[in-house]
């Protein structure tokens, strides 16, 4: 028997006769299903919504401010003038 694959075929034929150990898992499966209940995304969704609302508020306040300061030099002079008596 010089063909290695024929050797493996014979080995497999013998291996298929093996008595397989049986396991009983129903109790543990049920326990895992009960413990691994699907993740609730409710609280996360609320946090995300709150963060989005705060970000929108800040954007609404800051964008007009940035637009009014489109020239940093003008803004600087305006600020300087306000300090001159």
């Amino acid at each position, binding site marked *: 028997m010089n063909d*290695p694959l024929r050797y493996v075929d014979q080995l497999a034929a013998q291996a298929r006769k093996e008595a397989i150990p049986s396991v*009983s*898992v129903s109790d543990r499966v049920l326990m895992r*299903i009960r413990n691994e209940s699907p993740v609730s995304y409710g609280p996360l969704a609320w946090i995300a919504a709150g963060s989005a609302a705060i970000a929108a508020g800040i954007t609404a306040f800051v964008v007009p401010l940035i637009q009014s300061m489109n020239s940093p030099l003008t803004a600087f002079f305006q600020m300087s003038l306000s300090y001159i008596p």
Partner: protein
Amino acid sequence: MNTAAMAIKTGIDTPMVTPNSNPVAGIIDDDRIDIKASINGDGEAYARLVRRYEHLISQQMWRFTRDKEQLEHLVQDVFVEAYYSLHGYKWKAPFLHWIRRIATRVGYRFWKERSRDTQYLDHGKESHIDSYPNPETQTPSEAAEYLYSILSDLPPDDRIVLTLLYFEECSTKEIAERLKWSQSLVKVRAFRARKKLKKQLEHAGYGRNNHE
């Protein structure tokens, strides 16, 4: 004896179609009732499904590990994964066929994770093959252990195809269905895997020191 029990006793994958089974899809009535109840949250119905198929699934998962403790974990993983996928069961094939596909994927994933974990440690590893016992003089368990160790030297992609071919005697079509690969991919992989296995055995001295 109902068809489910017959299938378990005989180990036949496709249960016989009897008045107690769905003649169209070959789905056992008991399974259909238990699957519907499980989807509706009946844990006891799912436990019945697990008890009906745990023996066949443990037979299948024994091809992925030779450790009994690990076997239990893998069988559990299969049924837990199946439970969360029950909504996706399309009632086209028997439940056993469907859960066998999940079992194959769980086992394949287990090998891939293990090979990722050990690839850095295994640099320059020696082959498991050092002698070639005569299969006829070996017990089935010894032969299975030996074949398992020979195949474990291959990468997971090759190993899964050859495991399904040698241990489970799956056809190309069955392997393709279980792995969600195309049949041509399975044929190519099987061809390459056999070639690799042959080369590996020859490299380890097969032919020089056969049947020690």
